């Protein structure tokens, strides 16, 4: 009895000490926080500039004009439609892949690739297959089938926008499915529960947890489809806000209206998404589980059929690479123009990645620190990271262009493009590293306080090792995304400064289709080789089913 009392007393004291320790606030780590503070200063600077635009704009009648109304309507119509399609089809694809016998590493590698594939590559690939003179129409003609259709317009826009986002959604759900705990699966197997019942009832919370973050990301990507709209919009009625901004800047020299258009888009997105931007306590893993998993469900006729359809959907545009390689042109490959474009693409990708990594890691550190200190400000850190991705990059480009004009062009164009790209990459890196970064944070906090571990030591000795693999994967994806971007470069290019996507679009616009496809093929092969090398590095010595 006495022993029991002592034990209870001891445990109570232990609990009090533990609670006291947990409630103790963590401090230090200024050097890690610096990039985040720098980012906040930039945000405030941009905001000041924005307020100035509002101040100098005297006439707001353009806010009520038909062009803007039509742009807003179409922007959100196509984005919401693409988001719904992407998430539903992504979910179906993830189940088909989960049931298939393909290796997980291969599945995620391909899904990653389809998500980050250059927009120009997929767009031209889709035209190559579905264009009026495309492969399919030629096959129809060959078999005397009188069936013609056009892919330009809303169909093409939704088809290509969904392409990337189905891959993103499928990757997300697939990772969720592979992380279903083994004991769940065993329990369902013992009770002979079908996959449909399991997904709709038992596993619903596991699969749908944090779905709002996926919706946020997909919606943002669907709204920022400037290049796709530029290529596939067949009518002036199919205009998005980004396209209207581009028109205001490039043809009307009206930066104020362009910036206010961008501000309107940002406000609308925030209003739609703000309820979803909450820091969740349950950090459901979305990283890939690489160990052997317990399997109870097998593929069936339906899943195999859908898988074939998805396979055709994703791989058919890639045929354009064969067309490109068929038009091999060694002179063009080693021309000054091509080499410079590759060089600039690499410089921009590397610079934007470095900037984005610094800001993302710093903000992760800030968010976790505030969360661990039970501060409500942690949600605002997340909001601040996401908010910049709500601003159309073409609007952001316009603001930075004008800032550079005021600074007498002190900033080189490549640096501005790198900055703009980095602002869009930061939320991606943040989101991808977030679960790993937060893993065991309560336990870690205890140890940090007990052993008086400094913030820098915690970051370098614990965090870095924890996120190393994810960091390499997300960095390589962001590197490729930045290399393939064709938004801000449309404003900042010059005869001496262009990137590979810009060179491709330039060749394509100058009748040189074969050369454009050739450079496109080389570019895609470069990206595939790069991703392959990174993958080999990450999964080296890891045994995967």
């Amino acid at each position, binding site marked *: 009895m006495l022993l029991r009392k002592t034990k209870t007393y001891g445990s109570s004291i232990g609990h009090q000490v533990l609670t006291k320790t947990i409630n103790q606030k963590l401090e230090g780590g200024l050097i890690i926080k610096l990039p985040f503070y720098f980012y906040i200063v930039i945000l405030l600077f941009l905001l000041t500039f924005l307020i100035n635009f509002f101040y100098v704009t005297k006439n707001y009648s353009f806010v009520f004009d038909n062009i803007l109304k039509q742009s807003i309507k179409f922007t959100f119509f196509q984005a919401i439609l693409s988001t719904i399609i992407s998430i539903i089809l992504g979910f179906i694809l993830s189940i088909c892949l989960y049931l298939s016998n393909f290796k997980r590493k291969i599945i995620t590698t391909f899904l990653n690739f389809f998500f980050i594939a250059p927009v120009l590559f997929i767009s031209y690939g889709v035209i190559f297959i579905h264009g009026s003179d495309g492969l399919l129409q030629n096959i129809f003609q060959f078999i005397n089938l009188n069936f013609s259709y056009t892919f330009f317009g809303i169909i093409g826009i939704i088809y290509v926008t969904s392409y990337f986002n189905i891959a993103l959604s499928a990757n997300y759900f697939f990772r969720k499915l592979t992380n279903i705990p083994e004991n769940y699966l065993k329990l369902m197997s013992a009770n002979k529960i079908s996959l449909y019942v399991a997904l709709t009832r038992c596993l619903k919370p596991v699969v749908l947890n944090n779905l709002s973050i996926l919706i946020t990301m997909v919606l943002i990507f669907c709204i920022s489809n400037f290049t796709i709209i530029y290529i596939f919009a067949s009518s002036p009625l199919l205009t998005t806000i980004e396209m209207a901004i581009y028109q205001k800047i*490039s043809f009307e020299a009206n930066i104020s209206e362009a910036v206010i258009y961008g501000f309107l888009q940002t406000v609308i997105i925030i209003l739609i998404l703000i309820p979803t931007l909450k820091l969740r306590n349950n950090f459901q893993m979305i990283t890939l589980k690489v160990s052997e998993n317990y399997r109870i469900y097998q593929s069936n006729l339906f899943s195999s059929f859908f898988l074939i359809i998805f396979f055709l959907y994703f791989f058919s545009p890639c045929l354009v690479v064969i067309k490109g390689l068929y038009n091999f042109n060694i002179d063009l490959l080693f021309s000054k123009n091509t080499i410079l474009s590759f060089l600039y693409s690499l410089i921009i990708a590397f610079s934007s990645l470095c900037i984005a990594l610094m800001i993302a890691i710093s903000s992760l550190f800030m968010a976790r620190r505030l969360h661990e200190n039970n501060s409500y400000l942690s949600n605002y850190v997340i909001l601040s990271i996401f908010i910049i991705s709500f601003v159309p990059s073409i609007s952001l480009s316009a603001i930075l262009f004008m800032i550079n004009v005021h600074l*007498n062009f002190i900033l080189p164009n490549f640096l501005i493009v790198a900055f703009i790209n980095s602002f869009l990459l930061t939320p991606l890196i943040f989101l991808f590293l977030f679960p790993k970064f937060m893993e065991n944070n309560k336990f870690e906090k205890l140890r940090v306080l007990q052993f008086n571990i400094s913030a820098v030591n915690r970051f370098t000795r614990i965090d870095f090792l924890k996120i190393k693999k994810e960091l390499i994967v997300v960095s390589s994806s962001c590197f490729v995304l930045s290399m393939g971007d064709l938004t801000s470069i449309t404003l900042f290019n010059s005869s001496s400064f262009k990137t590979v996507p810009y060179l491709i679009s*330039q060749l394509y616009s100058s009748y040189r289709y074969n050369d454009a496809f050739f450079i496109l093929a080389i570019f895609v092969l470069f990206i595939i080789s790069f991703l392959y090398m990174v993958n080999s590095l990450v999964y080296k010595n890891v045994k995967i089913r």
Partner: protein
Amino acid sequence: MLPLSLVSKEQLNILTYDSFTSEWGPGPSIQKSFEEICDCQVNWTTADSSGALLSRVKLTDNKEGFDIILGIDDSLMSEAKDTNLFSPHALSSSDLAKLNIDWDNETFVPFDYGYFSFIYNSSKLDNPPKSFDELTNRNDIRIIIMDPRTSTPGLGLAKWIYQLKGEQSKDFWKSLQDQIVITAKSWSDGYGLFLEGEGDAVLSYTTSPAYHAIAETDENYKAMLFQDGHAEQIEVLGMLKSAPNKKLAQKFISFAISKGFQDHIPLGNWMYPVIDGLEGSSDFYKYAPMPISLDRVYASKKDKDLWIEYWSSSID
């Protein structure tokens, strides 16, 4: 030690549209010819279209220090002049008299011109229409045009229709709507889609068939020649008031209407040169015969807004 003059050559900064200075455009050859006579260095900066050139200097107030803008067209001239960013060209009337087009503008100098037309592939389309009315009656012809708000050929079509139809333009645009399959953002996008088979005809220039015939040895591409006439487009260059090197800019403007520059226009920019008697251009004229020309119109902002209004009201 090198003489200082060799080390620091005078610089001429020209802002132009993208395709002009690309390695397959006339820019590199013109640069070479001019540098041979000026002992200077020509630096090109590009914007992606003719409309974007004017926007850029307007936005920056030419803080980027360009000497010359090359490539805005006659529809933008009045707007460009109103910016007060340009200086008079200082060419004498005898210099201008050498041109094969009438020209009396004091600020801008023409360097090439063309006529808008619809291009078709004669191996796929028989019996092309000979007028706009005939075109609207041919429901089998799908056409690709450009957005007049973002493309000068698009605006050119709006002007062309207005010149022929006047107040009836809106009705005419409406009758044309069913045949328009794509309204592209720029000429190059629209033309690319036409070559990919997305339309039976595309808005372009009467000179476009010359490119296919000479550069690609494909004589199937032809321009629809309308009996009621074709609207004209003139591309011009102008010197900026805040040009850092006015003397050199003036020299380049004189050079632009000389043989050294004009020689590269027909087979480089695929437009009509502004002087006659160029060697080697007979083939070009063979495949790009002059059409019936409508009267030249120098558009004001109000005119342009009206043409665009007729077009946009037909698609609401």
